[in-house]
């Protein structure tokens, strides 16, 4: 049971970092489909640069720098050059999938995967008895998760920047009339998304294990995007959605281990979050439609 809870947290943590990061962009009206790629870039640079330089923190700093640059390019393309955000976002993800695999090969001469020389500290150490034995698996980023959620909530719900982001996303004309610089607000939101995705990638690659492998995010960025919609674009609910997705994943993994006890195939359990997201998005769509027609 304790192990199950810890597994859920470990599987949820990257989703929550990426989901809350992506929330900034989505609330600003950018359906940021490049989250998947940014997470992967974050994971790769953390492992690659961190291993080369021998410090996990400098590795994460490098990952943040790369992700800020990629986010800036993405912003430049969709804001300045009016590129389509979905196609460009998919391109960004493909670029990161190809780029991380290519650079792993070109710079570190590894194919498929590489081990990391560094990993995140695990604050609770030692093979103690009971709960602590499992909790010791959690990295410092996972422990800092509640603080991270609180900061995101504070920025999005209680700060001027958060208000500007929401205004730009919900009603850009009003935002512009109120003197908000739409382009700049979008840029800031996208840079924050990039930063958080670097943390998500770091937690994924050097949080539990200490390795990077080709396409290791394996759709987690898209799942984080689903968590944002499942969480109604709210920080706390997105966090809960991330936990729910991690939980479903943990149940799926456990049902694989204890095969034979249940007759439900693992794949159907793993489907639950995706189906739930679709149903939820549809219900919300109906409600918003009704609200609009009542308002008119």
């Amino acid at each position, binding site marked *: 049971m304790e192990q199950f809870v810890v597994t859920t947290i470990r599987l949820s943590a990257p989703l929550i970092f990426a989901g809350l990061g992506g929330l900034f962009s989505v609330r600003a009206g950018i*359906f940021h*489909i490049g989250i998947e790629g940014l997470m992967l870039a974050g994971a790769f640079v953390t492992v690659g640069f961190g291993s080369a330089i021998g410090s996990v923190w400098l590795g994460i700093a490098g990952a943040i720098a790369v992700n800020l640059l990629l986010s800036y*390019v993405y912003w430049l*393309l969709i804001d300045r*050059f*009016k*590129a*389509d955000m*979905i*196609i*460009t976002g*998919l*391109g*960004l*993800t*493909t*670029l*990161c*999938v*190809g*780029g991380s*695999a*290519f*650079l792993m*090969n*070109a*710079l570190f001469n590894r*194919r498929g995967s590489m081990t990391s020389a560094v990993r995140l500290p695990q604050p609770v150490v030692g093979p103690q008895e009971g709960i602590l034995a499992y909790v010791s698996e959690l990295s410092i980023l996972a422990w800092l998760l509640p603080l991270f959620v609180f900061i995101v909530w504070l920025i999005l719900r209680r700060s001027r920047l958060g208000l500007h982001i929401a205004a730009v996303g919900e009603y850009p004309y009003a935002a512009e009339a109120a003197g908000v610089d739409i382009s700049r607000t979008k840029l800031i939101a996208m840079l924050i998304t990039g930063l958080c995705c670097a943390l998500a990638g770091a937690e994924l690659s050097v949080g539990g294990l200490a390795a990077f492998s*080709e396409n290791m995010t394996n*759709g987690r960025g*898209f*799942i984080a*995007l*689903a968590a944002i*919609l499942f969480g109604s674009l709210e920080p706390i609910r997105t966090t809960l959605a991330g936990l729910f997705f991690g939980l479903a994943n943990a149940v799926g993994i456990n049902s694989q281990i204890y095969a034979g006890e249940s007759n439900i*195939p693992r*794949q*159907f359990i*793993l*489907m639950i979050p*995706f*189906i739930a*997201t*679709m149903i939820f*998005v*549809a*219900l*919300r*769509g*109906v409600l*918003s*439609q009704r609200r609009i027609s009542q308002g008119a």
Partner: protein
Amino acid sequence: MSRWIAAGIRIASPIAIAFALGFILFAATGYDIAEVVNGLWQGAIAAPGSLEQSVRWAIPLAIISFGIVITLRTGEFNIGAQGQILLGGFGAASVALLLPGWSPLLVIPLALLAGVIGGALWSAIAGVLKVWFNADEVINTLMLNFIAALLIQWVTTGPLKDDATRGETASTPRVADVFRLSDGTGVSLELIAIVVIAAALAWIIIERSPFGLKSKLVGSSPRVAAWQGLQIKRIHITTYLLTGAFAGLAGALEVLGPSARLVTGATPTLGFTAIVVAIVGMLRAPGALAAALFFGGLQAAILFLPIVSRLPSSGLRIIEGLVALLITAQFIWLRRRRNRRRQS
């Protein structure tokens, strides 16, 4: 005439920039550019069997992209081709495996039909959710891709499991040889005939049918379309069905053609590349066909390159990503020129 030249420049310049950026990266990381260019040339065209491989990949890319052209023209972002391909393959594999002793003249059309229907219905889920529930199709098609992948994983490890397969990749048993439309190369007269028919169909639907005209109006100016009294919901649903039908057909051809079976995790990037193909083809059927040949060549080169060059195949994925990144951007100097022409 100058309109076509401008359009050509608009399409060619992002591709040229993508290749240039990719080559700069390869050179910077110590690869021999001449060797890479040679590998591309050999892998896509020159080496024995290469041209065949380029066509082999152009076939599914073209068919899928026809459907994506239709969806993008209607203004819908159906990015679920990946899942629709799998469901199409599932439909075709089920028919071919459940009716082993029957006449190929009956089974092959039935299997193709099952593939088309499988893809169309899978796509229609997102369509229904969009039209009647106002639910965003981008997220729903993404979710449907995940669900389809899990579903096929279950099918290939459960009900249609091939007991002979070993190792990591699960798959169904092989389809009987009499039902196959090509050997492992994936190029045959039958497959090329099907592509030509699909292209003609797509061209008629897009350029010469009332639906094509209406869907273009819905995509470019939905309000005008509504004022004209068009049944927008019906047009949207038809669009989703058609998009899925083309992707499903491509999935069915994979099963009846080169791979001979439904495999978990096969062709994971095909659905995405087809979107790029549709845009590079300027959202027209002949353009998509030409673009499919180009990206089919790139796909063949991706698979071939590791054999002749030290450059890992992921290097060409970078170029593909860069093309997608840049292809829809409106670069300033082009926009200025267009404005100038409008003024004069």
